[in-house]
């Protein structure tokens, strides 16, 4: 649309014709109040707060529905406009309970703010206010009707945004009420409630305290919390969640998760896990003291000094006596990049072993190698919101990557993006799809083959050959295509699909994994045969840049054991020690506990998991919400993790690795290049000294002024960021300022081009190593059982399913 010029309060403003006046004003810094308007949702013009005077138009106009055209003249702050807004507020407050002193939204309420601004505090009415009791709609959603101002944001958020349609308006006039989708008559306990995805977006959108969170209500006041924006630990989308943190006797406690500033990669969206499932951190079952196994077989609390000394001593002895090849290291999917990097560096350079792996939830090895040598072929999560056409093969984003699903829905709804889906399940996103192919079981390989031109594969791919053919034609005809791949595809199937995509001119790719740093774990080289950045392990060749890392580490030059081989070695009695950092392989891979009886097992964990219960030493670990660093989401978007909460007694995995290395007599300065002695370390941004982004680091200023170095501690993850940037292909381009100011940046994987077929071993052999977690909206791996909110929601869901079954039988 061509630009037009309008006049608002005497100011000339320019905007594309047809832009909503409220948006034009917002970008010019002119505040137009609105309750019902929510960018991206359908227009309502219901609250009448955004009224403005337009020249030559008899009535006041609503800025939320007025599309700007050349020469229009508006006034937004005349006495008439102000009076109209004030009168509307007076009407709203007439029935409002004014229970702000106990309302969760107090201090964060748009109705409060508007009343403050327009001074509509006078009361005219002698009649009692309409009152209804509060309702519990689900374990996490409560509704207080008297506070509701009927802006319908929740209704639209649920229907248009989430494609759930669990909320609607009941009755009419002043009896109108927002109602959930299971009416009292159908509910087992005769109480109306919600049958939905429990995302909490309705709470997020609510401008007042009508919808409140079951996880937070009546716990504290907003101004009593510190608000720390960090990255959610749960799925691989890497949403920003703002944690409300409050001091407690033994540290600081997270009391709330929400999407407060909407500045994250997730935009408006946050799912139930990002919003409620922080509560594992507060679980009473947390280990807060190191545990050491006694001769009688019991795990007993020990001091940090005792425990770390024991671990250091045993690791040194076993390495020296039986060799690094007998030690296995297993890392986690929720470690920071810095921790994952440090862990593999520690394994390779201190333990002298390449026996290192992690629970792989997606085949990033194949993904990186299939894309080796290409440029600009990977997509950011942000591109799912803007891509003109998307091909989704496998996966179920609605359940496993909710932000991806939100973006795809929004893109289809607002931009009319074309979504093509091939899946062996009838996933919910098919409702947004332009074309959906219901694949046969094991149909992904045949689909990749069929797309690549192998017509004979059609029958194995899907029953409906006609729709498959038109699907392929449509996909190939797209000028640009974002290919989103679920973790159902691995190895050769994955490579074939990517190879097909690479024949299209403008295809980009993303592979969806399951946890906050699944991608980072692979990128950082928690792999037995690949160094960071998917650099192959092989004979040292000083001419080969790929050997650079191995030379610096002076690490073994032969690939180590993968996760399954590590446990095979344990069973065979060939594993002297096992070091598990933030993982639960015993449960995940169904390991026979007897296999580890002759192995010295050290586990860094929050809880006494199946794996920790077998350990000789358990070290209490901080979780992702209690540490700083960075994580990389499924798409390769790097983001900063900020320390929010604190728990007395626990340490970060980073610190524990460094301390163990120190106890082993290793050169800590070589492991973590900190301090002045190490060349190449740039000054940090003061995060370790408590400086927030954008704030001057007054300590650093003072230190520098006094010719002192702004010092880094060896436990500071920032100390190793330089090395990651220097050594890990793909991470060289990261912009530190971008990272530290809480923004996301997309990194391109840069696997070394494969010289011969050696590297491709990964593709044919590794299938059984990739184990998709198959989480639902209400599970998150081992954390599930420690999160009260996830447990509540799981228990709550079966009765929903029961109702659905009942309804189906009626139909």
């Amino acid at each position, binding site marked *: 649309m061509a630009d037009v010029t309008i006049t608002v309060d005497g100011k000339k403003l320019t905007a594309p014709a047809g832009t909503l006046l409220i948006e034009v004003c917002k970008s010019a810094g002119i505040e137009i109040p609105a309750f019902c308007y929510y960018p991206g949702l359908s*227009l*309502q*013009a*219901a*609250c*009448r707060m955004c*009224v403005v005077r337009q020249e030559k138009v*008899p*009535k*006041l106009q609503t800025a939320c*529905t007025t599309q700007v055209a050349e020469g229009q003249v508006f006034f937004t702050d005349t006495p008439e406009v102000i*009076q*109209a807004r004030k*009168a*509307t507020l007076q*009407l*709203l407050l*007439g*029935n409002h309970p004014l229970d702000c002193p106990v309302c969760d939204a107090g201090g964060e309420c748009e109705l409060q703010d508007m009343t403050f601004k327009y001074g509509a505090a006078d009361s*005219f*009415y*002698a*009649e*009692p206010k309409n009152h209804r009791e509060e309702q519990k709609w689900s374990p996490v959603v409560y509704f207080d009707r008297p506070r509701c*101002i*009927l802006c319908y944001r929740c209704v639209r958020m649920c229907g248009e945004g989430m494609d759930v349609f669990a909320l609607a*308006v009941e*009755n*009419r*006039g*002043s*009896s*109108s009420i927002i109602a959930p989708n299971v009416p009292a008559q159908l509910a087992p306990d005769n109480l109306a409630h919600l049958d939905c995805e429990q995302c909490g977006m309705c709470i997020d959108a609510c401008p007042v305290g009508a919808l409140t969170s079951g996880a937070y209500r009546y716990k504290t006041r907003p101004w009593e919390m510190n608000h720390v924006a960090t990255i959610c630990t749960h799925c691989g989308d890497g949403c920003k969640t703002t944690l409300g943190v409050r001091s407690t006797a033994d540290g600081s406690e997270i009391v709330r998760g929400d999407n407060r500033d909407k500045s994250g990669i997730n935009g408006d969206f946050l799912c139930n896990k990002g919003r409620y499932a922080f509560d594992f951190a507060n679980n009473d079952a947390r280990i807060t003291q190191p545990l050491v196994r006694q001769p009688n077989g019991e795990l007993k609390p020990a001091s940090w000094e005792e425990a770390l000394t024991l671990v250091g001593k045993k690791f040194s002895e076993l390495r020296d006596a039986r060799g690094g090849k007998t030690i296995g290291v297993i890392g986690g999917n929720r470690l920071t990049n810095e921790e994952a990097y440090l862990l593999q560096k520690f394994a390779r350079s201190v333990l002298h072993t390449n026996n290192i792996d992690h629970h792989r939830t997606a085949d990033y090895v194949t993904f990186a190698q299939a894309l080796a040598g290409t440029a600009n072929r990977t997509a950011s999560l942000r591109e799912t919101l803007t891509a003109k056409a998307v091909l989704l093969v496998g996966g179920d984003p609605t359940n496993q990557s909710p932000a991806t699903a939100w973006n795809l829905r929004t893109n289809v709804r607002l931009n009319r993006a074309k979504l093509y889906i091939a899946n062996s399940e009838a996933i919910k996103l098919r409702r947004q799809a332009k074309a959906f192919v219901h694949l046969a079981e094991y149909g992904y390989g045949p689909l990749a083959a069929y797309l690549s031109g192998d017509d004979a594969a059609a029958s194995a791919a899907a029953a409906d050959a006609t729709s498959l053919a038109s699907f392929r034609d449509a996909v190939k005809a797209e000028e640009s295509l974002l290919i989103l791949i679920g973790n159902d595809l691995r190895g050769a199937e994955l490579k074939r699909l990517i190879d097909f995509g690479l024949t299209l001119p403008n295809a980009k790719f993303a592979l969806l994994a399951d946890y906050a740093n699944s991608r980072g774990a692979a990128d950082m080289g928690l792999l037995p045969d690949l160094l960071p950045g998917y650099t192959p392990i092989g004979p040292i060749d000083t001419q080969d840049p790929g050997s650079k890392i191995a030379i610096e580490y002076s690490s073994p030059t032969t690939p180590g054991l993968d996760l399954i081989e590590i446990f095979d070695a344990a069973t065979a009695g060939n594993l002297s020690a096992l070091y598990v950092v933030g993982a639960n392989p015993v449960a995940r891979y169904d390991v026979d506990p007897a296999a580890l009886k002759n192995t010295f097992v050290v586990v860094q964990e929050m809880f006494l998991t199946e794996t920790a219960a077998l350990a000789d030493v358990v070290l209490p670990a901080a979780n992702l919400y209690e540490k700083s660093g960075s994580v990389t989401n499924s798409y390769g978007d790097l983001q900063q993790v900020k320390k929010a909460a604190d728990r007395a007694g626990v340490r970060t995995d980073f610190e524990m690795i460094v301390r163990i290395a120190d106890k082993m007599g290793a050169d800590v300065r070589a492991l973590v290049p900190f301090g002045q002695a190490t060349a190449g370390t740039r000054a940090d941004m003061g995060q370790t000294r408590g400086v927030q982004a954008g704030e001057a680091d007054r300590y650093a200023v003072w230190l520098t002024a006094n010719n002192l170095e702004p010092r880094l501690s060896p436990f500071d993850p920032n100390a190793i960021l330089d090395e990651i940037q220097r050594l890990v292909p793909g991470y060289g381009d990261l912009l530190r300022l971008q990272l530290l100011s809480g923004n996301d940046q997309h990194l391109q994987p840069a696997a070394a081009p494969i010289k011969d077929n050696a590297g491709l071993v990964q593709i044919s052999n590794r299938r059984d190593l990739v184990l998709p977690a198959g989480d639902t909206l209400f599970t998150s791996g081992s954390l599930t059982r420690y999160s009260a909110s996830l447990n509540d929601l799981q228990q709550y869901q079966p009765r929903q399913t029961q109702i659905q079954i009942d309804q189906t039988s009626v139909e």
Partner: protein
Amino acid sequence: MPRLVSHPDEAIVLKRRFGQGAASIDKYVELEGYAAVQKAIAQGPDAMPNWIIDTMKASGLRGRGGAGFPTGLKWSFVPKTSAKPKYVLVNGDESEPGTCKDHLIFREDPHTIIEGAMIAGLAIGAKMGFIYLRGEYRYLLQIMEHAVAEAYERGYLGKNIFGSGLDFDIVTQTGAGAYEVGEESALMESLEGKRGVPRIRPPFPAVVGLYGGPTVINNVETIANVPHILLMGGEAYAKLGTERNGGTRLFGISGHVNRPGVYELPMGYSMRKAIYEVAGGIRDGKQLKAVVPGGSSCPVLRADEIDVGLDFDQMAKAGTMLGSGGIVVLDETVSIVEFALRTIKFYQHESCGWCIPCREGTDWIKKTLTRVYEGGGQKKDIDNVQYLAENMMGRTFCPLGDAAAMPTLGFVKKFRKEFEDYIEGKKAGTPLITVQELVGAGH
């Protein structure tokens, strides 16, 4: 069932087939029925649309639902070509208190509605028409459906109507009992099976209407006039009325008159004559106190303000509206306080609740007036009611807010003294309770 009435001053156009059994197609055809549509088709396929619209423009017919928008002009806004189907929609959601004219048309002359809708369809190029009756008119639905079935039986509706090569179908539908769906866009929502809440405009129905297609929506009386206008010619129809207010209009005169009923009077006819001559004057020799001139949403006229011509422009000049033609006559026995309360109770009950000023405003006016009526009023309540009504005016999502605010403002401004006297207890027969007692009773 209302009796049919007549008066020598009436100018009979629309009522010419009333009382003659024209609900039966044979009688309708005998009385020149379906002649107008054939006359239109006879103009030839190319000339026909413009001929119809020009005739309508010449007739000066203005929408009989209440807003008074020129019908020919409205039809001319419909785009000639459209990717989506176009529709004709007949608004029979006659719900304005005091209004009962469409009712008679449904009962006495349903075929003229069908024929009018067909002509509108031919004019704009629609193949489909809907006749929407208010939910409470279920008993008229049978008559209407019978008429539609007869028209299909004769082949007048359906494929190739009257050999024109054009198709036209009609479907009838009833509402579910909401005043709000008389508003054109809310009616479309209701017809589509949704909640009866108005739509944001623009786009207007002529461009994006029912099911997203260009739609002409007209009141029953407007549509029923169309065949007559085509037969008698636009100019002849226009001449019956006043300048820019063509033709005649059905006025439903009710209340304290000797001969209440629906009279067809020329536009611009004197209101005083309508009350005192046509409707036979005030019953039992009582004095006239006030007149609600065009359905309950129109500001009230005092007895000394009724020397005004009944057309859109003269009524606007008098500070009120012609509205839907429902004239409610109030004699001296009426308490304006009670009448104002009864009026706002209706709008409070019918407010759809979509926007804040109407939803909350009607509720608080009702609550306040209820207390005043029950004897717990204070003088500042009158100011509060006026303040509420003034702050609803022009600020609501649809005209329902205005419809509630306008009469309220009329009552408290023109009869303020009566409110004050009532509050001071000068009106006998109402128990006085204190505000505290009232508030206390609610807790």
